[in-house]
C-alpha cells in the first residue's frame, strides 16, 4: 500500500527509481534496423500490422546504432560480417541488449562450415536466444518480452559491476 491510497488522488504517483527506469527502458526499446538474412523477413513481419511490435514500444527501428538500445541479430553472420557486427554493437550507447534471432545466429544452424560464425555470442554478448529457422514473429515477440523481464529485473547495485 502506497501513500497515494492513504492520501487520495493528489496527481502524484510514487514508485522506486529502479521501477521507473525499467519502465522507460522497456516501453521505448528501439531496435536497430539490421537484417542479415531470411530471419529479417520475420522481423519485418513482427513489425508490420499483423503482429505489430509497436504494442511493446518498439515501433521505431533505428537505422543508426547510435539511437538504438536493442540489436536483433536476424540471420547468419558470415566471418566477413562479424567485425562489422561488433563495430555496430560498439557504437550503440549503453545500456544495450542483444537478441540472437534464429538458429544460425544462435549456433550456426545448418551452416556448419568455414563461412559462418558458429553462434553470434562469439562476437557480441547475447541476452536472449530465439530458436527457430526462421522463428515466427510470435517467437520473436516472446523473445522480446523475455528480454523485458530481464531488463525489469536489473538492479542498480548489480549494474555497477
Amino acid at each position, binding site marked *: 500500500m502506497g501513500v497515494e491510497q492513504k492520501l487520495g488522488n493528489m496527481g502524484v504517483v510514487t514508485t522506486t527509481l529502479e521501477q521507473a527506469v525499467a519502465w522507460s527502458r522497456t516501453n521505448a526499446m528501439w531496435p536497430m534496423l539490421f537484417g542479415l538474412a531470411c530471419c529479417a523477413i520475420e522481423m519485418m513481419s513482427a513489425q508490420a500490422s499483423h503482429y505489430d511490435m509497436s504494442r511493446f514500444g518498439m515501433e521505431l527501428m533505428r537505422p543508426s546504432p547510435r539511437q538504438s538500445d536493442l540489436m536483433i541479430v536476424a540471420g547468419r553472420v558470415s566471418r566477413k560480417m562479424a567485425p562489422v557486427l561488433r563495430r555496430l554493437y560498439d557504437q550503440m550507447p549503453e545500456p544495450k541488449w542483444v537478441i540472437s534471432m534464429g538458429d544460425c545466429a544462435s549456433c550456426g544452424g545448418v551452416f*556448419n*562450415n568455414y563461412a559462418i560464425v558458429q553462434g553470434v555470442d*562469439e562476437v557480441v554478448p547475447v541476452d536472449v536466444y530465439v530458436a527457430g529457422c526462421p522463428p515466427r514473429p510470435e517467437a520473436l515477440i516472446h523473445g522480446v518480452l523475455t528480454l523485458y523481464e530481464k531488463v525489469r529485473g536489473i538492479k542498480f547495485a548489480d549494474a555497477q559491476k
Partner: protein
Amino acid sequence: MDNKLQPIVEELQKEFGVTASEYRRDASLVLPAEKIVAACQKMHALGFELLSALTAVDYWPQEQPRFHIVYEFTSVSKNLRLEIRVPVPGINPTVPTVSHIYRGANWRERELWDMFGIKAEGHPDLRRILMPADWEGHPLRKDYPLGYEEPQFTFNFEEINLRKPYAKE
C-alpha cells in the same frame, strides 16, 4: 551434339590432339595446362565471347590429378556452349592465366586461388577475393575441415559451455 558445335569440336580435336567426350549434348575436352592459353585464344577467335564459368573440382584423395579446372565457354552470338577441363596435380597446382584473353577470368582466377589454392601464373593481381585477407587455408578443398560448433546436449552442456569462446561486453 549440336550441329553447329560439331565442326568446332572437330577443329579443336585436330589442333590439340585430344578427344572430346559428350554428356547430355554437352561437349567437353580435357587439355594439359600448358595448352590452355592457346585454347582460350582459339575459342575466343571461334566466337565464344564469354567465359561463363571458371571453377575447379577437387578429387581428393586422388593426387594425380587432384584438381580439374573447368572452363565453360559460351557463345552468345551462336548459342553454343563448350567445356574445357584442365587436370592439375595436388602439389603446387598452377595453371597459366587467361585473364588477358577473357577479362572476366581475372576475378574467377582469384576465386580459384582463394577457394582451391590453385595459382594462376601471370595473373596481374592474385589476392583472395571472398575470404578475409588473413584467412589460412583454402576452404573448398576436400581436406579442409568443416565447422567447429559442438552440439550441446543435456549430458555435456556444461562441459562444452565452459570452453565456448563467448564474447565480452
